[in-house]
């Protein structure tokens, strides 16, 4: 049977290891043979990550969807992954009614699929930076934000809540004891990977609290947690308990707390 489908297969220019299979035209029963040949070649070449770019696909029959599923199975049996990207709203709705979303990972566009490969398969972390004036009212939005991001990136609810707690304690500390000038923002830098999150909080020191920061750098990570009668100093002890690693960098100008939290529980 004749088919209007055109297939282009090329390695990604920007992400090594990813292959883009661009389909153009109607995916119908006449295109099954060409699809099958392409999948056989991609499997033989041991392509680890194939993105089927559906941006120029006008329609897709159930038999052609079955062939895409077959291609996915073929690749996964050889350790590869096949994902779909760039479908228009109508096509995506139709394929989801046929159950495609239960089988395939579907990305909004090619770039999102490539970014996912970057993160999932190459284990490249994603980076977030946030800067806010030293006001205590802003720590709840910051901690909620990073808790949501942690959940989004596959941390369990429990882990995400612990990350929120860490962020809250470290940011509160930076606000309470750091410089109170509106120009001296608290900076939060986050690197989030498949297995861990790293959080770095930096503040400009308040000259009046220099002794406090000195005591932190010299004592808090070496001494036992404060006793029940001590009203202060519990925050960073709590951070130390919840995190996998806490590093503290103090200078006369500023203080940086660097916290690493590994993914523990399944989401």
């Amino acid at each position, binding site marked *: 049977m004749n088919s209007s489908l055109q297939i282009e297969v090329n390695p990604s220019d920007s992400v090594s290891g990813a292959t883009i299979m661009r389909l153009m035209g109607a995916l119908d029963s006449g295109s099954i043979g060409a699809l099958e040949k392409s999948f056989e070649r991609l499997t033989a070449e041991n392509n680890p990550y194939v993105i089927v770019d559906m941006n120029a696909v006008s329609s897709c029959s159930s038999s052609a969807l079955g062939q895409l599923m077959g291609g996915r199975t073929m690749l996964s049996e050889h350790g590869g992954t096949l994902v779909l990207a760039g479908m228009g709203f109508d096509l995506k709705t139709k394929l989801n009614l046929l159950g495609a979303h239960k089988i395939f990972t579907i990305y909004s566009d090619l770039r999102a699929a490539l970014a996912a490969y970057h993160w999932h398969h190459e284990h490249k972390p*994603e980076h*977030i930076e*946030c800067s806010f004036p030293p006001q205590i009212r802003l720590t*709840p939005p910051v901690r*909620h934000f990073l808790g949501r991001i942690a959940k989004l990136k596959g941390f369990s609810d429990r882990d995400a809540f612990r990350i929120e707690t860490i962020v809250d304690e470290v940011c509160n500390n930076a606000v309470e004891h750091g410089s109170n000038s*509106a120009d001296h923002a608290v900076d939060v830098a986050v690197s989030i990977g498949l297995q861990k999150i790293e959080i770095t909080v930096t503040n400009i020191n308040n000259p009046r609290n220099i002794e406090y920061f000195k005591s932190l750098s010299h004592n808090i990570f070496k001494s036992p947690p404060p006793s029940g009668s001590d009203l202060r100093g519990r925050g960073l002890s709590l951070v130390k308990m919840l995190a996998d690693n806490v590093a503290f960098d103090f200078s006369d100008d500023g203080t940086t707390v660097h916290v690493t939290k590994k993914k523990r529980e399944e989401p």
Partner: protein
Amino acid sequence: MIRLEQKTSVMTDSTTPAAISLAFPGDLEYIPAVRKFIAEAVASFGFNPKFVYRCEVIVDELCNNAVTYGCVSVTAAVKLTCRLFRDRAELAISDEGGKKENIVKLEQALKDSDAADRRQAVDKKNLGMEIVRLLAEKVDLHIDETRGVTTVKVIKKCEETR
């Protein structure tokens, strides 16, 4: 003697804003968390819920626009700054700029013509900038061709001063 230390107050007058900035990966999945963050930050300064929600809508539309049309490279990031004054929020969202045709479309969408007529004619899928224009008092586009950065700046005024 107990000394109570007074934190320097920002937003004590209309010229000293509280500035919050954020940079995040150019990926649609981040946007719900980003818009909630800004909404919570705005609410924490005592703005009314209607103003807070409208800021959230504006952030959502601008970020969606930036990610969808302004991010090209796999590692593209979107930068957002939110400056809160007593009577208004000033938002700026920057991206890589994207394809020339998308920048032209954005410029077109921000040209000052009859907004009502355009809203009727506009494709339902491309309502983003129209919604921003409807909700905000001022929307400006800045293109820095040398750095390859496109920034949309928005001023949203609050009906009642807090």
